[in-house]
């Protein structure tokens, strides 16, 4: 899922400063699961902003809502009338949702979140980055553990000299980050696939990553027009 963090309340209040009538629109998918921008967070943030603005003597009218997926027009459309009646929309979706609403509506769409990474739920309250979305998966060769996302240097042939004796990475000062290549070595051992390590990966073609510019995926067979 996409993992995001709520912006500091001070920054959100500053963004909302010029507005008196705002829709707080959450997203019930990824950011709801990572407890940053779901229906519940909309309620909490709206209550906090209302209290802050009353305290400042400049009350704000907030409409609260959440859509199933803000990255998809069809889920946003039922909110069109409400959105058009607002001075601004504070989106609690990831950056994709903010972009999507901005493409559709001539109302300022403000981001309540900082979008961070693709992550897994490690345990309640902890999310970890495990996929970098580089566009060229090699997980079948690395025991399902991604060195691009989980190695600080994105090494394809690791580990580097920065691995500590206890198998942690030198980059995390408190030793909290395991070396991705130690994890891969252990995992391949369990799978009886250590021979994979004898293959040396060549230089990675990063054109499928963001280095090739904004990406787009098209499935011709699913297009409705033409």
């Amino acid at each position: 899922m996409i993992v995001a963090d709520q912006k500091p309340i001070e920054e959100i209040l500053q963004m909302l400063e010029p507005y008196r009538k705002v829709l707080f629109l959450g997203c019930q998918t990824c950011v709801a699961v990572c407890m940053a921008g779901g229906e519940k967070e909309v309620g909490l943030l709206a209550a906090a902003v209302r209290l802050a603005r009353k305290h400042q003597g400049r009350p704000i009218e907030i409409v609260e809502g959440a859509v199933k997926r803000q990255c998809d027009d069809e889920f946003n459309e039922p909110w069109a009338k409400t959105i058009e009646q607002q001075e601004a929309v504070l989106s609690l979706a990831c950056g994709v949702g903010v972009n999507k609403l901005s493409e559709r509506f001539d109302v300022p769409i403000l981001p309540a979140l900082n979008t961070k990474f693709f992550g897994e739920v490690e345990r309640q309250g902890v999310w970890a980055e495990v996929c970098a979305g580089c566009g060229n998966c090699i997980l079948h060769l690395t025991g399902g553990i991604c060195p691009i996302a989980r190695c600080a240097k994105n090494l394809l042939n690791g580990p580097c000299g920065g691995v500590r004796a206890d198998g942690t990475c030198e980059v995390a000062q408190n030793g909290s980050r395991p070396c991705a290549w130690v994890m891969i070595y252990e995992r391949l051992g369990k799978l009886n696939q250590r021979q994979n390590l004898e293959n040396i990966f060549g230089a990675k073609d990063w054109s499928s990553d963001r280095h090739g510019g904004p990406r787009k995926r098209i499935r011709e067979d699913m297009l409705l027009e033409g």
Partner: protein
Amino acid sequence: MTNSEPKIVAFCCHYCAFAAADLAGVLRLKYPPNVHIIRLPCTGKLDTLYILKAFEAGADGVIVAGCLEGGCHFISGNLRAKKRVLAVKGLLARIGIAPERLEFFNLSSAQGDRFAQIAREMTERIKSLSSSVLTPLPEGKG
């Protein structure tokens, strides 16, 4: 209750604080009548939104009262609630509301006197704060 008395909402665990409040009544202990009790099955049920909504609805202070540490009927509900209260205290401070208006207390069902004391303490604490929770600040402040 007079208008000058601060309004306090007390979220009380069914197994301890709520029973303690009941005991305070049975013992005919006096405590300020401006404390409005809301019973929770455990303070672990406390949603941070309840606290903010209480302030929004006009409460001047909020008490969250759970079991003694180690005594929660649901093992760790009171510890979790304590963390949530701490987080909301931080949020209140950042939006210009005195975090002292919110407090977490631990007590047992046998402590009717302690409940009455907490109610008095919080009432006095809130009275000593300069203004009502939502008194507008002078223009340009906050």
